[in-house]
């Protein structure tokens, strides 16, 4: 394939290094230094996709991140697919594979275009809202169709083979953009010795200088760029980041930079290299030198391939050596676009005409074009383009001085390319990310950054300073100021000499009038990516959408992957005019991060797979793995869930574990329970204030169960706390609540009762805890200790003893969550596995059976013990749980929860209360969450009485058991409630005590 639009010379591409790539299945050749866009243009590819709504053919219109149409799917393999890549930003590499995102079945022949043609007037703004909303149940069907037809990019179906990095950085001065202003700023700041980061989204530094033929010190500007980059590279305090888009400017000068490390090298990153890196920069001062984007003008059929932004045409010629056509018509409201005509002429192509909307343009560039003999048509505009898959000509006409209407006759000109310029829009996006509202300036016809609370300076195009001289001066000054503000006093770097170009005043014109009213004229596109037209915006305002934010949402202007970089200002101008307001009165929509789309890979960095979230393991984890354990995630902990033997179902395993524990002895790894060491002379007083029960008289050597409530009186955690010494306690919490409880204790100590002398420390990880439970628990433990008297008289239920177990120093607590004779053995965590294995060595003869959380839940439910977080939900107080025995009314201090549970609503009768539930059919296990009703025949909505919180099959009782809330349940023992289930069954259950087994608690006291 020949590169028919490639110029013989010029540009920054390396013609000695050809690169082949595939676009829509066809092979093309470009050169090193090309972007996919410049290579496609070189090859004469006009159509790059189909439009979102009308399915019109679209071509490349811009040369940077503002490109709305050339949004490609890139990737040679399924795993390396990247959606929505801007062809204008993707550097070419050998073997690159890409395809159009839009267009079904393909971009050249498109089914939807017929719908678009037939239904052009049907697809008005709000079309999707109005048409596809009803019936709601059909939305999923519609969405699939719309997505397929509209062609948003698709994500890969396989895992990304590449890895991505995050890097935290600190900078004294962060400079965004390495055009003339940014480079000058970096020179000033870099020379001060301040830590400087200079980031630019392009592959090379230089910004607009790479695209122009301007001279600095009488030599090509790129030579100056090279000398600056060379100096900066030598400075150790300066970090240069090319291919790095500053995508977000967050609070307190925190910036996120998306650096593409290998996207320009190959489809997949070379081995051992990160594909992309996210820099997270905290900067003392920021200099925004992000430049400006040129606005295209809005005129009839301005979306036909061949219509481009004027500066983009210059960029393709000057930077890439590509003239994307033969016969050019330029339309402009300002002097800048004359340069495009001059560049075009210099490349040996035909400039048909420069159509200037101003009646009397008078700048230097105008004079240069006229001197060159180019035809300049003044006070006129291109009102309409001819052609469908490529521009074939234009209609031009004289317009009035305000640009409101066509005043002359229409002339037709043949051409294949239309370059338009409506002036420049400063890239204020990053400034807006910080919450600052941009301000309109009539003199530059654009928004500039508004007031900010950030330590931020701006320089160059972002300020509406478009001359090279101004960019260099502002950059040097602001770079020096930023460094000085950051504590590195320095003078501004000297500014090199540049020619001064006299600019004529630009005309504030956005929307070119047509001979017909906007609603009847050929479509005049504002937002190419979302197919928003001038007529659509006017219609939206007529339908009453006056706020620019509403216009945006109604028309979809500014949505999509380009976020309205190209079209938003034009759209706002049209909305302003159609509501008889000024642009500042109309205002702008809000730009939010990210500036350009960013891959999920870069956002995730290394935080994926195994590194997504920490996993916590007990010391005995290895044993669990070796013994066929099935795990349950509890917070970050991997807790044993149950231990199935070969051929066992989960229920089989649970039945076996439950029976073995009640009949002989079972063992649970309880290491994950939160453990908080509490010391200090006021520790006891403190416990009394945070628990609902009494702690003043708990003797050393004793353990006590406690309930913890919030100030609202609602239970939020529970656990056993033991007196290790007069002023030393060990508190246990639920596994998931450990961190919350510790912070809760700290909160009250630090903010409410700092006068209490008490200290808290987490010791969860320092201890391994194994609970042996069952009638043989004492016999088993006796085999491993000779210094703890295990007799029932000397080591009572709710006592704890210090001694050794298997030769390891241990704290043994005789507490029970199963209702069986039970010992909780705590040893230093690194001895955990050893002691555990010793227990199994000695436990074989007792058929010591490991069990996990599920059997623990069943065994405790047989005893009616609650699990905070399962049987409580933040709306139940201790009395609701039938646990009034755990609430002291005698404590002098008004402990946390006391006042709360005395509130009117908390003491009213008929609250939902936790009760036991026995299904009438003992084989039926209620689903947890099932809703209780009194009368299942009541018409829906039925009066709901509560719900099931815990429900299991109890092998020991050979029936189902459940706990749940029932309104007034504690007063309704023996009554029936009904549970209508989703499958149509209605389960009847009898309200009973939640203590299903051993109601007198004899088993644990043996």
């Amino acid at each position: 394939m020949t590169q028919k639009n490639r110029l013989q010379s010029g540009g920054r591409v390396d013609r000695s290094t050809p690169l082949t790539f595939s676009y829509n299945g066809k092979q093309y050749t470009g050169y090193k230094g090309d972007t996919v866009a410049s290579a496609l243009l070189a090859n004469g590819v006009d159509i790059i996709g189909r439009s979102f709504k009308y399915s019109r053919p679209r071509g490349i219109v811009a040369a940077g991140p503002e490109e709305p149409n050339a949004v490609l799917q890139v990737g040679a393999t399924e795993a390396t697919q990247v959606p929505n890549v801007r062809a204008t930003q993707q550097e070419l590499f050998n073997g690159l594979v890409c395809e159009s995102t839009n267009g079904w079945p393909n971009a050249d022949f498109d089914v939807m275009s017929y719908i678009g043609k037939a239904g052009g007037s049907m697809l008005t703004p709000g079309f999707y809202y109005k048409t596809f909303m009803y019936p709601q149940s059909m939305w999923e069907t519609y969405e699939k169709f719309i997505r397929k037809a509209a062609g948003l990019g698709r994500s890969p179906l396989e895992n990304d083979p590449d890895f991505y990095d995050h890097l935290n950085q600190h900078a004294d001065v962060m400079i965004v953009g390495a055009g003339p202003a940014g480079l000058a700023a970096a020179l000033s700041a870099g020379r001060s010795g301040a830590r400087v980061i200079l980031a630019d989204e392009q592959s090379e530094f230089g910004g607009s200088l790479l695209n122009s033929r301007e001279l600095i010190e009488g030599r090509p500007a790129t030579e100056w760029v090279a000398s600056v980059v060379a100096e900066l590279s030598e400075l150790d305090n300066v970090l240069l980041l090319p291919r790095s888009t500053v995508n977000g400017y967050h609070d307190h000068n925190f910036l996120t930079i998306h650096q593409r490390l290998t996207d320009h090298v190959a489809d997949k990153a070379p081995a051992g290299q990160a594909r992309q890196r996210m820099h997270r920069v905290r900067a003392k001062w920021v200099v925004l030198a992000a430049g400006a984007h040129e606005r295209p003008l809005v005129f009839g059929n301005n979306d036909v391939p061949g219509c481009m932004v004027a500066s983009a045409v210059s960029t393709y010629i000057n930077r890439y050596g590509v003239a994307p056509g033969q016969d050019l018509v330029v339309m402009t409201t300002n002097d800048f676009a004359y340069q495009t005509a001059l560049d075009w002429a210099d490349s040996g192509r035909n400039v048909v005409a420069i159509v200037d909307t101003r009646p009397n343009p008078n700048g230097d560039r105008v004079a240069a074009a006229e001197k060159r003999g180019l035809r300049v048509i003044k006070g006129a505009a291109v009102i309409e383009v001819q052609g469908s898959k490529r521009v074939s000509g234009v209609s031009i006409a004289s317009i009035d001085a305000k640009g409101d209407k066509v005043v002359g006759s229409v002339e037709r000109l043949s051409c294949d390319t239309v370059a338009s310029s409506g002036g420049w829009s400063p890239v204020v996006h990053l400034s807006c990310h910080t919450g600052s509202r941009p301000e309109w300036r009539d003199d530059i016809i654009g928004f500039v950054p508004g007031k900010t609370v950030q330590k931020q300076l701006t320089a160059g195009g972002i300020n509406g300073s478009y001359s090279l001289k101004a960019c260099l001066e502002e950059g040097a000054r602001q770079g020096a100021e930023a460094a000085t503000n950051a504590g590195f006093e320095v003078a501004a770097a000297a500014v090199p000499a540049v020619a001064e170009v006299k600019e004529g005043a630009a005309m504030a014109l956005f929307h070119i009038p047509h001979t017909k009213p906007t609603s009847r004229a050929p479509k005049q596109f504002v937002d190419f990516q979302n197919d928003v037209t001038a007529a659509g915006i006017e219609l939206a305002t007529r339908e009453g959408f006056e706020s620019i934010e509403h216009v945006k949402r109604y028309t979809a202007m500014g949505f999509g992957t380009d976020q309205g970089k190209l079209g938003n200002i034009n759209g706002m101008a049209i909305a302003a005019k159609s509501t008889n307001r000024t642009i500042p009165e109309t205002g702008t929509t809000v730009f939010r991060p990210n500036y350009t789309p960013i891959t999920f890979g870069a956002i995730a960095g290394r935080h994926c797979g195994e590194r997504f979230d920490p996993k916590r393991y007990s010391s005995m984890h290895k044993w669990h793995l070796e013994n066929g354990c099935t795990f349950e995630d509890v917070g970050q902990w991997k807790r044993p869930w149950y231990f199935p033997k070969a051929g066992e179902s989960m229920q089989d395993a649970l039945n076996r574990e439950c029976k073995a524990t009640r009949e002989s002895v079972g063992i649970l790894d309880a290491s994950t329970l939160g453990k908080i060491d509490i010391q200090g002379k006021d520790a006891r007083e403190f416990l009394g204030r945070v628990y609902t029960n009494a702690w003043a008289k708990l003797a050393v050597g004793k353990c006590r169960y406690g309930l913890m409530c919030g100030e609202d009186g609602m239970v939020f955690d529970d656990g056993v706390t033991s007196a290790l010494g007069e002023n030393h306690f060990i508190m246990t919490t639920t596994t998931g609540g450990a961190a919350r409880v510790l912070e809760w204790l700290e909160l009250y100590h630090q903010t409410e009762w700092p006068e209490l002398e008490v200290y808290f420390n987490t010791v969860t990880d320092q201890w391994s805890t194994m609970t042996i439970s069952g009638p043989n628990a004492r016999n088993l433990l006796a085999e491993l200790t000779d210094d703890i008297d295990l007799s029932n008289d000397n080591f009572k239920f709710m006592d704890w003893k210090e001694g050794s177990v298997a030769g390891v120093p241990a704290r043994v607590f005789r507490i029970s969550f199963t209702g069986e004779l039970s010992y909780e053995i705590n040893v230093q965590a690194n001895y955990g596995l050893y002691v555990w294995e010793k227990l199994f060595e000695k436990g074989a003869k007792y058929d010591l059976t490991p069990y996990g959380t599920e059997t623990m839940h069943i065994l405790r439910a047989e005893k009616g013990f609650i699990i905070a977080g399962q049987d409580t939900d933040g709306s139940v107080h201790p009395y609701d749980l039938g646990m009034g025995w755990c609430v002291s009314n005698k404590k002098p201090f008004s402990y946390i929860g006391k006042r709360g549970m005395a509130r009117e609503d908390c003491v009213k009768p008929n609250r939902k209360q936790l009760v036991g539930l026995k299904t009438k059919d003992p084989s039926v296990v209620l689903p947890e969450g099932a809703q209780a009703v009194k009368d299942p025949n009541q018409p829906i909505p039925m009066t709901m009485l509560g719900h099931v919180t815990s429900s299991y099959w109890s092998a020991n009782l050979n029936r189902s058991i459940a706990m749940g809330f029932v309104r007034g349940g504690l007063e309704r023992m023996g009554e029936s409630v009904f549970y209508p289930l989703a499958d149509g069954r209605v389960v009847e259950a009898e309200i009973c005590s939640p203590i299903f087994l051993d109601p007198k608690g004899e088993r644990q006291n043996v």
Partner: protein
Amino acid sequence: MHYIYCPHCEEYREEEEFHAAGEAHIARPLDPEACTDAEWADFLYFRTNSRGLHHELWVHATGCRKFFNMTRDTVTYEIKEVYKVGEQPQVTADQ
């Protein structure tokens, strides 16, 4: 993401190490039993929800684990000051 000076550690740390713990200066009534339900509800639930200057309680959760107060602008997210529990803010809305 905020950049927060911990008055206990006496250095700036990233927000990831902290979390907010609600409005500052909400003192637990010294005699809860003397509070009416309305007063207790006020203590429990009602907050100023300020637009602009706001005094907040923060905790250096993965740092020193200590609580401290912050005066912050809820519109601009500007941190005006941090001060220890028990101290009074220097920057207030009446100024």
